[in-house]
């Protein structure tokens, strides 16, 4: 892909992430206090109009992305880290049975629908954004482990890794200098896919009303709250929805481009969500 086309996808994604992260500092006025009648259309006073309770939509849009993006980023980083350590660990272990049992457990956990895990975690301790992030991490780990495990098992049989081992290099040196450079591209692509899935799950959690309670703003929840007023003012539904779509679709398009260049399609690096 030419540099230009990469930017076409990367710029919107970056813009949405930036808006999400610094948005809460920019929010004009209160995000919880009503400023007018419900579902006033956008205008000069309130650029995007008001929502179901007459609150300023612009302020809520600016404030509603940070939790979601931070949840997704935290879940992706933690999940990738866990995936790397467990994946490399199970691929390097000499205990065939332990490795097989580990794979089996990972497969079993991967079979549980992600939404179900989210709901279960939320029923255990309601109203916590951290629990949602932990649940998303838990959902993403099995996929990361599987991909990293496969990649490492393939690398570990290469001649240069065998050479390094025969030279008597320590386990850490082999991982650091022989395995990680080969795993890195796969792990990066995998992390990107997990980020897309994590964004979707975080938004779905907001949509279902999990995570922090009602007055806080959340793009996922905004879509649900304001869907009754689509006739009067569609902006409180459409703006968060468009932001979410740009983030997720832009990211997956970017990944797909990169994957096509390297190996040939998303299918190679695993399936979404």
């Amino acid at each position: 892909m030419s540099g230009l086309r990469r930017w076409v996808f990367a710029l919107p994604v970056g813009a949405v992430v930036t808006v999400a992260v610094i948005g809460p500092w920019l929010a004009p006025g209160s995000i919880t206090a009503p400023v007018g009648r419900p579902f006033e259309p956008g205008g000069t006073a309130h650029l995007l109009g008001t929502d179901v309770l007459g609150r300023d939509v612009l302020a809520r849009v600016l404030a509603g992305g940070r939790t979601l993006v931070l949840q997704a980023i935290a879940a992706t980083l933690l999940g990738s880290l866990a995936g790397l350590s467990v994946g490399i660990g199970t691929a390097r272990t000499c205990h065939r049975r332990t490795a097989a049992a580990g794979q089996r457990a990972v497969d079993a956990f991967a079979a549980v629908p992600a939404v179900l895990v989210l709901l279960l975690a939320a029923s255990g301790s309601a109203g916590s954004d951290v629990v949602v992030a932990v649940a998303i991490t838990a959902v993403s780990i099995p996929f990361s482990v599987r991909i990293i495990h496969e990649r490492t098992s393939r690398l570990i049989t290469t001649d240069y890794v065998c050479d390094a081992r025969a030279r008597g290099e320590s386990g850490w040196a082999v991982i650091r200098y022989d395995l990680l450079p080969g795993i890195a591209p796969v792990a990066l692509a995998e992390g990107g896919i997990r980020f897309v899935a994590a964004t979707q799950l975080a938004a779905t959690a907001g949509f279902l009303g999990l995570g922090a309670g009602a007055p806080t703003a959340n793009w996922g929840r905004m879509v649900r709250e304001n869907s009754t007023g689509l006739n009067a003012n569609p902006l409180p539904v459409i703006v968060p929805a468009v932001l979410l779509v740009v983030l997720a679709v832009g990211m997956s398009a970017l990944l797909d481009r990169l994957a096509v260049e390297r190996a040939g399609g998303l299918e190679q690096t695993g399936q979404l969500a």
Partner: protein
Amino acid sequence: MCAVTLTVLSVLVFWATDILPGDAVGAVSGPDATDAEREAVRLALGLDRPPLERYLDWGGGVLHGDLGTSMVSGTDVTDIVGARLEASFAVILPAAGLLLVLAGGLGTWAGLRAGSRLDRALSGTTLGLIGTPDFLIATGLLLVFTLWWPVLPAVAIVPLGQSLWQQPELIVLPAAALALGGFGSTMRLLRACVVQSAASPYAEFARLNGVRGARYVWTVVSNAAGPAVHAFTIMLAGLLGGGVVVETLFNVPGLGYELTRAVGTRDVPLIQAISLLLGGATLLVLLAGDVLVRLLDRRHPREGQP
């Protein structure tokens, strides 16, 4: 193997709903309850007993088909689940059928003409669908078909004493939303299967021998059946999870709708029963897919199969 996995699943479900902080006591006794009242509720619910004992009690009940009673409505959980199951099926089965036809047809078509304009257009569309969360697809459909072009009802309100099956217009939107949600990834997987099969020596041999038209398509498709079945079972399992979101949005009185409601009211026995059922169903679907793939592989012994 499946039994072990199911046991692990039941432990997870029980642990998440029963042992984590914020148990049912707070939900049942209300926020203003005194400590003495909370203790009384705890005793009445039997929550003072050790977790292991309660788990065995619950697990034993499940094995005998007794899922306990709902903490909120006081009715038998088995009855609630039974009543909800039908509505879930009424949405999931048409969605699965729709997906089978759409993803199967378009996946085969795009796979046979890999690199064509149609293939690239479909690839872009599916990428967009994969990236869009299910609930946005569903909301989008709702927007289009109830507001801008109002031909379908927005929420499924089933008249008393009738089942969802008798109201096909209520099923259309939820089923379509569910199908579209799974369409992207399924079509991509199927396309990849067909591309791989069309590139195999087997298909090339057929081409060189002048096999054309429907017979050639059949040659390629039947050769791709194993991985395709696998893709479909993953899709079906995904529908079970996606159903939760779609049912909640369209107020379809199915299992997923009941689950989100139960989570809202902290109705622990109901959450446990539905989670176990959904998780178990997903595992069974995946297992059935694996068995089917094995059988297909045995029927078509091919070289170079792992």
